[in-house]
C-alpha cells in the first residue's frame, strides 16, 4: 500500500514543475521532494524522503516532510531505526494524518 503526499494548493511554478516531471516520467519523490510512506498492515510503517522528527511519543510520531507534516497516531509506537534517508516505525498504528 503506497500513498503519495501532494500539496493541496499549487502555485503556477510547482504546477508546471509537476507537469514537466510527469511528462518526463521522472521519479516524483526525488524531483518534488514528496515523502514515501509504506504501511504494512497496521503494525509497521516505512518512511522515506522526510526532513526530520518533530515529535516522538509512544502515542504519536510527527515527521516533517518537504511540503507537509506526517502524523502517525496509535499506541506503543517506536522507531526501529532512523537515518537521514529513511526510518521504520513499529507499533499499533491507528491513523495517518497529513497536517
Amino acid at each position, binding site marked *: 500500500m503506497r500513498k503519495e503526499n501532494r500539496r493541496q494548493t499549487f502555485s503556477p511554478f510547482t504546477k508546471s514543475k509537476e507537469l514537466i516531471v510527469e511528462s518526463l516520467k521522472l521519479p516524483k519523490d526525488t524531483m518534488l521532494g514528496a515523502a514515501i510512506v509504506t504501511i504494512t498492515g497496521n503494525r509497521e510503517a516505512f518512511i522515506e524522503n522526510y526532513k526530520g*522528527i*518533530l515529535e516522538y511519543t509512544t502515542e504519536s510520531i510527527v515527521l516533517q516532510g518537504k511540503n507537509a507534516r506526517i502524523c502517525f497516531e496509535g499506541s506503543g509506537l517506536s522507531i526501529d*531505526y532512523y537515518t537521514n534517508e529513511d526510518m521504520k516505525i513499529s507499533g499499533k498504528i491507528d491513523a495517518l494524518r497529513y497536517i
Partner: protein
Amino acid sequence: MLHWIQYIRGYVAVKVWGYSVERLLNLCGNHDVLVWDIEDHGDYHTMHMSIAGFFALKPLLKKTGTRAAVIGKYGMPFFVSKMLGRKLFVAGLAGCILFWCLASRFIWDIRIEGNFALTEDVLMDYLEEQGIHTAMKKSALEIAELEQALREDYNLITWTSVQLRGTTLLIHIKENEMPVYDNRNKADSDKGMDLVAEKEGVVTYIITRSGVPQVACGDTVQKGDVLVSGAVPVYNEDTTVRRYQYVQADADITLSYARNLSLEEEIAYDEKCYTGESIEIPVVGTGEKEVAFRIRKVPYDFYDTSEEKKQVQLLDHLYLPVYYGKRTVQEYEIVPKMHTEEEMKTLLQGRWRKIIATLNEKGVQIAEKNVTIKKNEKKWVLHAHMQLEESAVKLTPTITPPVEENEEENTQTD
C-alpha cells in the same frame, strides 16, 4: 546479517533525556549517525547506536541540551576487551583450543572388527610390533601398508580395511572361513617330504597314497623313524637305482602304543573354612606401583586376598594407566577333614574322565584299558594300563639322496 555486522562492530544502548530528544534524532540523521530501536519511556528515550556514533553524539548533546548515558554495551569490541581483562580465562580457552588441535593429530583409540579366530589381544600385540599404538601420530600411520602387512602376515585374514575416523583407528578384517592349509610344507614339496613317527609304537594300520612305505603292519617303530619316504626311486634296467623322484609322502598310519597312568587321591585333606571376617581396603595404583589405604597389618593368620580393579577410562577403548579398586581380605581357618568313600570315587572318576576327554580331543583312540583302584588307609590310587592308537606322524624334509646313486652315475660317466 545486519545483526552480525552490528555485533562485530559493536554498539551501545543509550538512555537520552532532556529538552528535545526529537531534535537530537534529527541531528543524528543529519550527521549520519545510525540509531535504531528508539523507544519512548515517557521521561527518557532509549536507543541503540554504533560506538563511533556515540562519540559523534557529544557535540549534538550540547547543542540540543539533552543528556545521554550508556546503559549497555554489546558486541565484539566490548567482549574482547572484557576477555582481555580475564587473562587466565583467555589463556585457558586458548590452551583448550590448542590442546584439541594438538590432540586431534594423534590416534586415541584402536578398534578391531570382524575378528573371530584371531583375538583382539593378538592383533593388538601385532599392531604394537608394527609400531601402531594409541597416542601415536596420525601422520606416522601408513594405511595401505598396514592393510597389506595384515594380509601377508596372517593367512587367516583375507580382507582388510583400515580407516581413520577422527581420532579412532578402525580396522575391519574378514577371516577366511575355509580351513587354512599350512603352505610351508607345500613350498618344500619339490625337495620331498617324509612321514616320520612322532612316538614309539607298533604300526597297526598303514595305507600309502604317495611315497614309498618303509614299514609294514605289525612293525615296531621308534620315535623319528621314517615311515613313508618321499624319495621314490626310478630304477635302471638292472634294477639299480637311476635317480630319485621326490614327492610329498601321504599316508594314513595308525601307531599303537601302551601307556600307564596312575592317579592318587589322599583321603585326608585340609578344608578352608571362611570365618566370615573380612576387611576391604581401597587401592589406587599406576603401572607396577600400588597404594593400599591401610596402615595397620592384617590381623589374620590365614587369609585369602582378592582384588577388584577398574582402570580409568577416557573413551571406549582408551584406558589411562591408572586404576582403582578394593582389596578384600577374607579370614579362613584350616579344618582337617576326611573324604568319604563316595567322595573319593567321584573325585578319582572325575579326574579319569577328564584325561579320557583330553585324549579324545587330541584324536587318540583307546583300544584297550585296564583300570584298577587300590585302596589304602591314607590314599586311593587309580592305576590304568591303556593301549592307545593314534596317527602320530609328522612331515619332515626328505633326507639327502643316498650317496651310492651318485657314485654309480659317476662311475658310469667315467
